[in-house]
């Protein structure tokens, strides 16, 4: 494994002290090092937001694009350059508010690129307005009386759009976060990774239930393909499927692992079930992974059997005539 520091740029990192972004950046450096990705073949592309500052801090090629458009930028980049390793870094506002359309199209097309979506359920950079993931009723500068309407459940939106890979991680579990980044990277198409990230200045504790030592075990279910859905202190709790309804059970009530919901990351319908677990118990890990050819590979196949034309051929076209003196 290479040295994570070799992937850090010389620019001073400028997030608020205590921001969850630091952890994600650190894990990202580590993952790049772990994967030993050549710096010159790696591109990190972001939109606008606190999270979207990340590319400046990574010593590869990088683009800090415009608000909501990293996905569109990357679609063009990878079509033109399928040889590159391109990562998308975005926030809940960037990807899901202004950038929602490009995101769903990228997912439907299955553009191969991991998408690191820093979800802090707030607009950080503009100093605290609701985002499309802010829970109903959230008080913010732009919603002093509470936010209206249901928030997106990002994994559900991604699945609805046709995402071939959907996963969730958190800033406060670095090891799992790295694992998810690696899984996202190795996926054959668009890899949607939602990362719960704490904005300690404008939305502190939005995810504490799921991320903090005291409560994490009781609220976060880590998914492993082929394994039952367990959580609680020492995995004392599990989730069963009662028809189409997930039910929490206590293993001490006589349930065995075989009684539980066995995670199958290839099942699209169960993935929807997981995606809709948006209450006080939430899944982390790979919710869904499906192998489908990437957009860039489809595009390459399309082009590869067509011969490039010479300038001469192009200029002549299909029908000419000669004017003699």
């Amino acid at each position, binding site marked *: 494994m290479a040295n994570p520091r070799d992937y850090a740029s010389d620019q001073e990192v400028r997030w608020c002290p205590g921001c969850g972004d630091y952890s994600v950046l650190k894990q990202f450096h580590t993952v790049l090092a772990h994967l030993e990705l050549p710096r*010159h073949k790696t591109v990190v592309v972001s939109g606008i937001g606190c999270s979207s500052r990340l590319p400046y801090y990574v010593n590869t090629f990088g*683009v800090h694009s415009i608000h909501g458009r990293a996905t*569109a*930028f990357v679609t*063009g980049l990878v079509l033109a350059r399928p040889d590159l390793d391109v990562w998308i870094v975005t926030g809940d506002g960037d990807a899901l508010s202004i950038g929602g359309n490009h995101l769903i199209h990228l997912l439907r097309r299955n553009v191969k690129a991991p998408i690191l979506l820093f979800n802090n359920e707030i607009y950080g950079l503009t100093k605290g307005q609701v985002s499309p993931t802010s829970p109903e009723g959230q008080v913010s500068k732009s919603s002093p009386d509470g936010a209206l309407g249901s928030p997106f459940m990002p994994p559900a939106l991604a699945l609805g759009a046709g995402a071939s890979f959907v996963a969730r991680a958190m800033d406060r579990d670095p090891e799992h976060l790295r694992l998810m980044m690696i899984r996202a990277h190795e996926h054959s198409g668009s890899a949607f990774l939602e990362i719960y990230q704490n904005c300690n200045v404008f939305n502190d504790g939005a995810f504490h239930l799921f991320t903090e030592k005291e409560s994490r075990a009781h609220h976060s279910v880590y998914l492993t393909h082929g394994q039952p859905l367990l959580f609680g202190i020492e995995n004392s709790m599990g989730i069963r499927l009662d028809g189409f309804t997930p039910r929490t059970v206590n293993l001490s009530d006589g349930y065995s692992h075989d009684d539980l919901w066995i995670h199958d990351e290839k099942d699209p319908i169960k993935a929807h079930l997981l995606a809709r677990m948006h209450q006080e118990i939430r899944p982390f890990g790979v919710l869904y992974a499906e192998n489908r050819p990437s957009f860039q590979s489809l595009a390459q196949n399309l082009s590869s059997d067509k011969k490039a034309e010479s300038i001469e051929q192009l200029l002549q076209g299909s029908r000419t005539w000669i004017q003699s003196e």
Partner: protein
Amino acid sequence: MQSEVTVLFAGDSGDGIQLIGNAFAQKSAEAGHSVSTFSDFPAEIRAPQGTVPGVSGFKLQFGGESVYTAGDKADVLVVMNAAAYKKYAGHLKPDGILIANESGFDGRNLALAGYDNGAEPLAEARASQRVISVDIKKNVQAALLELPLGTAEKNRTKNMYVLGLLAWMYQRPAQDFEKYIQEKLAKSKNVLEANQMAFRAGYGLAETMELAAFKTEVSRATPAPGVYRTLVGNQAVALALMVAAKKANRPLFFAGYPITPASDILHELARHRNSDCLTFQAEDEIAAAVAALGAAFGGSLAATASSGPGISLKSEALGFAVTLELPLVVINVQRGGPSTGLPTKTEQSDLMQALYGRHGEAQMPVLAARSATDAFETVFLAAKIALEAMTPVMVLSDGYISNSAEAWLIPSEDELPSIAPPMVDGTPADGNPFEPFVRDAFGVRPWACPGQEGLEHRIGGLEKEKNTGNISYDPANHEEMVMARAAKVQAATRFYSPTQTDSGNNSGDLLVVGWGGTYGSIKAVVEKLQGKHYSIEHVHLRHIHPLPEDFGNILRGFKRVVVAELNHGQLVNLIRSTYLIDAHRLTKIQGQPFEEAELKSALKTHLQAIQHG
């Protein structure tokens, strides 16, 4: 011998009018005529058959050297039904020839066209015009009797019958057309045969009807010898992009979102798709522009095209392109605005937007094509500027150019200018970090692409520190970067050829300045007025921004300057503020090209004012 002839074909959208129009234009060009065409499509959705909104028109003028436009009023009007007559009757010269398909004037068709019960438009026409009225439907059914095709399919060859008629009238060898039809319809043997038979029937009828009276000889041009092809405006744009990319040794990446009248650029490129020429239909125009920028970052010649509404949507992305200093060719095929406006009509009302339609100081070179073949040169040059000066470039085309066809003397590969983008090779000395915003003598930054070891760098939309490209909020640096970007664009004048007036006069009474698709109309009228010994000259600007350095001198050589544009007066303001001369505006905002007559009368007024003033 007539020096030029204007023919206007009109019929229902389903009548194949555009096909025979193009065929006739093509063959006229091959016969050595100068040719200019103009398509008048119905508004976007097909209206019910037989109604006026459903009429499709194709006008062409052919003749000697002086054919620069598709002509004003027609010498010959072909109408396939009553609706076509209703729409275009006023476009026929008082002594013109009307060729009418009788079966298109039955009661049902008259009613559909909105004629009152009992109206007899053809009878009225006969009173003043020369009318050739033929029941084309009956004639093709008769001619194709033997063929194993349905009535409807046979009917669909009516247009070929007309083509045959016209071919005879203008003394074109039938076999030329038959070959053309064969090429176009190679796919189905029966259909091909039917069309050829219908053509021959029309050709034959003309002979037997002894239409000799209408047989006309028309001047030919003396085009330079060489190999020619036809170029339609949008096709020329696509071709220029492909050829420029090859010249620059870069792959082409084109991203677009369909919109009338720009869509055909995407279609044309998609037909040529291969690993050197990628097309991408994006989810919207913003994505198209931004995806193109992504490809530019990756090292492609990137381009996008749209029309008004889509160009407006690209504003933010184009400002981003300006600050990234990446090459990007943006083509605006202008149509009638504002908003959705007149989607199928031509207009020149997006010039100010091209110059100023972005927030912040965000200049980019702006070029305007004047005709279908000129679109090739203009877009090629735009690509060269974009690539060599590392900047987005806007090219203005318009609805008129997009659909019009011209004969084009094909240049050889070597005649085309070389294109050498500032690619970086090698890595910075001593392991220093690469500096993406160090400028060369022309203010151009280097182009380093992912995949190049040692050239890793990060760019974005925030203001950049000079040289390093790192984020900088430093006040003086901001001013320096704004000025550097502006100076780089200003230096694009090094790519210009000298500005030339049509007849080479750089002084006189009246200078008519034009730009874009009005080229032919203005040129034709000015030439005629010169013929009448007026002191008048025409200059047509390709470069709107930066303005050519030699342009001010030309302007100052004339007593009066008139700027003719299809808008409310846009270039005229730029000229006034830049040169402080009292340039006059001559405008038209009707979604239609200038007509010779109206232009002539407006210019005469100016000429008189000069004489009296």
